[in-house]
């Protein structure tokens, strides 16, 4: 498809402006003016409309296709929440308004949304307080481990430099810990798919700052050693961090704060119905137990005794600012709408149906692909290995391409790293039985094709605007400006 720059013709414009009838005596100094003409597309309004509409029809997204991308919780976001978030009373608020004199009175609704969302999440997940500031999941992780660092520093325990991370945790955990200045140490997974307690015990000493558990873990399993792991780390003087990216599996069923976690991040764009993918915006709020409250980032929203809300900045032990303003406010707003829509009765049904869907898919496919769930009931996602198909030279990537050929977004592949040829399938609670059956049928056909005609896979996908992309060349010869295309 042509770029918009290659459409239209020289001199063509979208609208005809009248001749300028004031003298061009701009006070902008010559040094600040552009010396060459801006290279803009020269196209009519209709050229542009057709260009973008055709592009949008090539889009492959959640609103058009099933999207079982494991670990990403690509569930449908009800449009009602989008409507709430688009209300002009919210969208037209200036972020500096609450800091202006008497501005607070004009922003009570927005401040209440942040305050109430914090309160609802704290109750739902068993924490003392939440900060809504972090702008993404990994940003939440970094904030969380910085809170752990602040806690140890305040206690004078500066020797606690090691963060323990199971090999079934999300890959961002060691990265976040390293960015915060910790050394990371990997803890293996036992044969049941839980944190290896013997290995954990052997790693505990006074250099340990904490442990980062992904709950449920990346095998799609609930770690049966969660409580024990938290207790052991506490006894050794460390803190327990919960990566809540997989919260969709347990929401409304168990409160991570009750399991012994001191700090947790959650992904609003995964679990709480806000747009996901395409670069965000995301939100990764962090909940903390009592002992970490003093270190939470500023600003914080407080409720005064007269029932009004205000921003607070005076907290002596805070880790300070981690983001501009108050987090991704419109994402927080969608979350608030989602929580109130579902309510106390509706929220547990998220995890109930998410887990049911994943287990349905797993049971239907387990004779066709190698099951990596270690003979256990999986949670919100099921992990298979394409090792059987790989013997016929059909790898996880080929299965992914075959699914695209059939109009289905592929599952996550090659993750978790501890499963060879991993296929990580997360159907989510918002898909119907018919959609799941359609997916299952497609996967069984693919498994059969891998036996009968493995060569066929190399031609997939052929039904898409572009065929099989050369990922290696794309990574080795990165060309985001399309320089090769223009030559």
């Amino acid at each position: 498809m042509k770029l918009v720059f290659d459409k239209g013709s020289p001199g063509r414009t979208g609208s005809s402006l009248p001749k300028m009838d004031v003298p061009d005596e701009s006070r902008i100094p010559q040094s600040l003016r552009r010396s060459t003409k801006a290279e803009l597309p020269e196209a009519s309004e209709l050229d542009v409309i057709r260009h973008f509409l055709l592009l949008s029809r090539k889009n492959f997204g959640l609103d058009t296709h099933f999207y079982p991308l494991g670990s990403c919780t690509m569930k449908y976001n009800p449009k009602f929440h989008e409507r709430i978030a688009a209300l002009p009373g919210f969208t037209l608020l200036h972020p500096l308004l609450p800091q202006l004199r008497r501005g607070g009175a004009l922003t009570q609704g927005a401040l209440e949304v942040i305050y109430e969302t914090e309160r609802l999440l704290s109750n739902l997940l068993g924490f003392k307080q939440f900060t809504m500031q972090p702008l993404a999941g990994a940003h939440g992780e970094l904030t969380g481990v910085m809170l752990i660092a602040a806690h140890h520093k305040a206690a004078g325990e500066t020797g606690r430099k090691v963060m323990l991370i199971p090999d079934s945790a999300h890959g961002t955990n060691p990265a976040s810990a390293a960015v915060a200045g910790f050394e990371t140490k990997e803890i293996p997974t036992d044969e049941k798919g839980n944190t290896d307690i013997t290995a954990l015990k052997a790693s505990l000493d006074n250099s340990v700052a904490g442990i980062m558990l992904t709950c449920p873990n990346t095998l799609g399993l609930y770690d049966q050693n969660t409580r024990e792991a938290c207790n052991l780390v506490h006894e050794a003087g460390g803190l327990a961090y919960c990566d809540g990216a997989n919260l969709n599996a347990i929401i409304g069923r168990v409160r991570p704060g009750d399991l012994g976690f001191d700090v947790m991040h959650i992904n609003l764009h995964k679990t709480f119905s806000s747009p996901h993918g395409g670069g965000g915006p995301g939100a990764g709020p962090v909940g903390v137990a009592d002992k970490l409250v003093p270190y939470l980032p500023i600003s914080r929203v407080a409720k005064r005794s007269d029932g009004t809300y205000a921003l607070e900045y005076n907290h002596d032990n805070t880790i300070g600012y981690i983001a501009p303003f108050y987090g991704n406010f419109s994402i927080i707003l969608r979350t608030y709408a989602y929580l109130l829509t579902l309510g106390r009765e509706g929220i547990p049904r998220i995890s109930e149906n998410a887990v049911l869907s994943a287990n349905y898919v797993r049971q239907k496919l387990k004779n066709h692909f190698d099951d990596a769930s270690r003979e256990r009931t999986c949670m919100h996602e099921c992990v298979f290995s394409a090792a059987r198909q790989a013997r016929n030279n059909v790898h996880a990537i080929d299965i992914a391409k075959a699914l695209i050929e059939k109009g289905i977004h592929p599952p996550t592949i090659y993750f978790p790293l501890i499963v060879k040829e991993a296929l990580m399938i997360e159907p989510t609670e918002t898909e119907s039985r018919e959609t799941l059956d359609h997916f299952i049928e497609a996967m069984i056909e693919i498994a059969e094709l891998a036996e009968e005609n493995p060569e066929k896979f190399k031609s997939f996908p052929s039904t898409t605007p572009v065929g099989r992309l050369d990922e290696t060349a794309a990574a080795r010869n990165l060309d985001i400006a399309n320089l090769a295309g223009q030559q």
Partner: protein
Amino acid sequence: MKKYTQDHEWVEIEGDIATVGITEHAAEELGDLTFVELPEKGLDVIVGDKLAMVESVKAASDVYAPISGTVKESNRELEDAPGLINSAAEQEGWICKIENFDVVEIEDLMTANQYTEFLAKGK
């Protein structure tokens, strides 16, 4: 003498130089490599230290030092041609050369035959 680690590095000693890389098996598992982060000349490492990092279309993975010593030189050709590791992981795809080592350190590592057995067991 050439030995192999459980983390899929190989180390070959010729005279005063120990050449280090990742095994053909590791290269195959990673798939097409897109980037290699090489150690700086003069870097002192001890066994198990992070020596290099390899990145493929599938994953990024650390390469650990199989032997203690000082990095004498790195294979600069990998900067422009990381695919050398895919085509010849245990020849032209070497990662770095180490000097000032003690050969005793690698006595307990696996021989080629033992490594092949180790891989077979893992499957």
